[in-house]
């Protein structure tokens, strides 16, 4: 085979081999890069823009209106349980929702490429203060009054509403907080800090 292998044979072999190798590399890269799958969750005010800076300084009875939007890019239909929680003082747990009280859970189905927008109207309807502590005793969520007991400091935006998406897992047969994007596990949750100011809202 190699006998009589002249410089022209060399350059033809080198060029063809290099072209084939590079095309194989291209094919490998394309096939080994699966499209990313992901879930997006975000919240905006009713007009679709981010909340104003003062929107989270609430008086008793003030309405905090937000849209929680969920987008599905998982290449399959997903069933989601959206939990709404209220939390006060931060716990030492790394999960920010630990210690939070569940106000509501909504189950929804989102098609691949689809979007779901859930309007949320949150009102603190009853609270009591004692010294530097404030205790939220009742919340109205989308018109439903829910008794709660959450304590926090009276100032500095230390109360939170948390929105957390749990996704149905067929293998485990339950809603789980993690979803996989093809490489890593992620979870979807949002959090609005708010402050309860003295007085009654309009």
């Amino acid at each position, binding site marked *: 085979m*190699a*006998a009589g*292998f*002249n*410089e*022209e044979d*060399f*350059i*033809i*072999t*080198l*060029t063809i*081999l*290099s*072209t084939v*190798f*590079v*095309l194989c*590399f*291209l094919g490998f*890269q*394309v096939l080994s*890069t699966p*499209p*990313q799958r*992901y*879930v*997006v*969750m*975000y*919240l*905006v005010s009713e007009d*679709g*823009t*981010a*909340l104003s*800076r003062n929107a*989270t*300084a609430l008086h008793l009875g003030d309405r905090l209106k937000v849209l929680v939007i969920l*987008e599905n*890019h998982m290449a399959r239909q997903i069933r989601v349980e959206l939990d709404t929680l209220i939390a006060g003082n*931060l716990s030492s747990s790394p999960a*920010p929702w630990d210690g939070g009280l569940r106000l509501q859970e909504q189950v929804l189905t989102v098609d691949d490429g689809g979007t779901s927008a859930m309007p949320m109207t949150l009102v603190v309807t009853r609270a009591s203060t004692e010294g530097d502590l404030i205790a939220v005793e009742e919340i109205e969520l989308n018109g439903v009054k829910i008794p709660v007991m959450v304590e926090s400091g009276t*100032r*500095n*935006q*230390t109360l939170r509403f948390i929105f957390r998406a749990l996704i149905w897992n067929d293998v485990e047969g339950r809603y789980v907080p993690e979803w996989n*994007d093809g490489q*890593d596990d*992620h979870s*979807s*949750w*949002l*959090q*609005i*800090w708010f*402050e309860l*100011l003295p*007085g009654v809202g*309009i």
Partner: protein
Amino acid sequence: MRHWRTLVACVLITSVAIRLVPGLSYRQPYGFDIYDLMSRVVPALTAGKFKTDLPQGPLLYYLLSEFAILGGASLETISSFLAPSVLALSVLPAIIYTKKAFKDEPAAIVSGLLAATTNVIVHQTGGTVVWEGLGTLFAGFALTLLIQTNLKDPKVIALLCMTVVGTLVSHHLTTMNVLLGLGVAALFLTARRGIRSREAYKPILLTILLGVAALSVWTFVIPRYTIEVIGLTAANANVWTLLGGGALAATAILASYRAVTAKRARDLWTTRPFTLGVLVFAASVAMPLLLHYSGGINAEILMTTLFLGVPMCVVYVPLFVIGLTSAINGRIDGRLLTFVLAFPTACCSLTIFLIFQPGLGVLAYREVSFMLYSLLPIEGLGLMEVVRKGTPARRYIAAFIIAYSILALASTSYPPRSYLMGLDETYRPSDLRISEIAVNAILSTSPIDTDIRIGNVILYLSGREVNWVSNVTYWTSPGPAWLGKSAAAGRPLDIPSNVSFIIFSETMLKSNGGVVVDLLSRRLYPLPDEALVYLERKPGVSKIADAGTALIFQVMRRQDEAAPPKTKP
């Protein structure tokens, strides 16, 4: 040579294929600069004129606009597929340059293959769509015309003027390289033939003309950027860095002049290419390790140097030594050798000079691609010299070894972040979607903090109508805001009052091997994981968007601000 056209076609296919790897894999543009580039094109497509400066040179902006208008495709599609394919044509001047320089068709094909697959050349000529790619394409054609002996022919002169002007309006640094290369050629020819010789005065004249044109364009047409970088280099330098850099740059020029004027070179290595290759491999691994363990370079730069540098050195250094020896001993015309060596010499000198300048040494990497590109004729000649001296059996084996080396060069064109100082030039769809949400939901006046990677995307999506507080207008940056400063400090700092929104990406996190991308003239730092925990647990900082890999935080009313007055009807 038989099959010439087929081989050129194969080289072109290889060139296009390797440059389409990111586009076909991710189906979106690759690299940070393309989003900055597109952000300046978007207003032109909607308002009919460019609203901002066109840094580095206007031609690529015009070209992208015309592709979008005439082709009707989106800017993302053009930047992912069409622009890399067009910039892949930069292999053609490399083939013509070698063919004209040494009248050696197999060497020309080798040059083309190396131009098509060398990692740093791929990165700068279509792997990422940057101004340099277009500049290199024009500069390559300018080099092929400059080595023509008949510079009297008006057609050649007209073509040369067109290619030089093309380079000038494409990219400032490539223009600088051509300018310096012409200067070095003029210097060599003057030293050899005298200033009054016909051979010397033409490059001198060309250098003066291009120099005046370049200065005029940089001062009046694309103000700020080029002159500013030169000014900053000078401002950061001191007499020792200037003298040290200048002295070593002059040494490189003198060594090159010695090669041009040498009557004969020792051909010790031409008969031992394999030994030379092994020695270069050992040296290219040992030197960065030595520098690392002596404290000269950090671990990130070490990994990058080894990943990109070792395959490059193993292919380029032995072939250069053998090619240059062969060119000298083959009695190649002195004028020709002067031009072939002048451009890589100019780039090498500028690289050495820049390495010595504080803060701007990292810019030296941009010189490497053009230096290697202008070395291609000697590389092609070097390989063919080895092949011609070998036996048929060795030629046969060499074809496979070189093909594997070319694959090694090509496959390192898109380094992952662990081999690129933490930089991730790939965008995940979730990163792009979170940027889109930010642009749609956040008022254009609200100050946003993010890094250059995401910042260029929000500039593009908003048509530059976004208040990115740590925006980098190339060299006039106000500097990083919270993300950059916390990364540099290694701990989360207080959020400054000029930040209302923070767009975070997991590519910034230390635990992911990422960095907060800033100007390359600054050191890049990873964002400590505590910074993300700080944002998630800081009262008053709400998390308003979550795409898994990227998040948006909103700084609500600050703790030190007075509560809004309560209004009652």
